[in-house]
């Protein structure tokens, strides 16, 4: 990269280039490994993994039970293992309880099933408000809870990572797991939104 003209770079881009070049020269990092890590989280690990877990739980009661009782083993059985997913807990939304996941102290997030967290998840507004005013957070996302529904917030203070299993939308009784996966959004697995309604995807189904 040293042959690039750096003058057009932002200060942070310039700083990172200098840092990467220094650490490479010192033998601490291999730029090709960085490319590979970026490629992994841009294309191979993301919310599609979590959607597969959720759709399977919706369609296979035994898997749902396993997920509830030992999320780590159930999720690892699908090949979703590794960094920031070593110890998993799955929490299930229903009409009486809605779950919401946050990390108030940093940005803990279940990378193996959701990929890297979005900016809002790591931001002071979300991290501060999720625990003291979770209903206000849901309002910010336009999410209206059923009347009488409780909110359980999970603050990821340890190395356990939380996956929210949203409620299966009505009108999907005859859908396959592959079809259902398209209803399971990243935000629905953090708990700030619900899974999509069937009509949101049926048109191109």
């Amino acid at each position: 990269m040293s042959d690039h003209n750096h003058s057009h770079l932002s200060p942070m881009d310039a700083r990172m280039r200098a840092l990467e070049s220094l650490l490479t020269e010192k033998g601490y990092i291999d730029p090709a490994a960085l490319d590979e890590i970026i490629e992994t989280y841009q294309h191979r690990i993301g919310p599609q993994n979590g959607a597969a877990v959720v759709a399977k739980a919706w369609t296979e009661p035994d898997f749902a039970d396993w997920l509830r009782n030992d999320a780590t083993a159930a999720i690892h059985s699908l090949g979703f293992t590794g960094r920031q997913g070593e110890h998993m807990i799955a929490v299930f939304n229903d009409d009486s309880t809605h779950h919401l996941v946050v990390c108030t102290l940093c940005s803990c997030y279940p990378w193996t099933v959701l990929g890297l967290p979005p900016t809002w998840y790591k931001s002071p507004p979300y991290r501060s408000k999720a625990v003291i005013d979770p209903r206000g957070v849901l309002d910010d996302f336009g999410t209206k809870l059923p009347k009488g529904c409780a909110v359980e917030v999970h603050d990821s203070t340890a190395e356990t990572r939380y996956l929210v299993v949203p409620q299966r939308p009505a009108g999907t009784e005859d859908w396959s797991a592959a079809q259902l996966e398209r209803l399971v959004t990243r935000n629905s697995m953090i708990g700030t939104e619900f899974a999509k309604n069937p009509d949101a995807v049926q048109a191109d189904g």
Partner: protein
Amino acid sequence: MNGGQDLGGMQGFGPVVEEADEPQFHAHWEARAMAMVVALGAAGKWNIDQSRHARESLPPADYLRFPYYRIWVEGVCKLMLERGMVMPAELENGTMLEEPLEIARILRAEDVEAVLIAGGPADRPSTSQPKLAVGDVTTTINAHPSGHTRLPRYARGRSGTVSAILGHHVFPDKAAKGEADVAHWLYQVRFSARELWGAQADPRDGVTLDLWEPYLVAA
């Protein structure tokens, strides 16, 4: 520490705003920063709790306004400087001036997949039994260490109920000081929102935190 990172329960940051069609990275440097921090883990010069402490001890005003990956960059530079892996002058101009330190390993592209898949489990074997059982009422300690801790301010000196026993895990307060072998029983503890926030909270609501035995006393 009660630093800029301890955000739970703060007010005044405004609504949570989701960026439409947010890209995975907002600039080239963000992608490189994420990957660099992940890759440097292989060097074996710090553990995850030392890394978190390096970030949370940034000046609070910086912590609150920097883009998140910049917090990572500042943290990793601080760790490398503290250990003598790099010199300030080297960071200044991006060229090596002193011999590198020996590291555990350099992460190569062909090993990335295996390393990411392996991860780094935090559970450790135990010969002890957990002191608390599911259903027990427990109170958190009220301590304000200047070092790293994972008991946030909003949950100190509060009473909750053990909702799960999660295993015997590396204890961050000690790991952040380099004592990476110390582990304690880890519990999920459920606090009613009213216990944490008073009468303004909805009586149905609750918050769970995952807390180690040294954070807890029997009620």
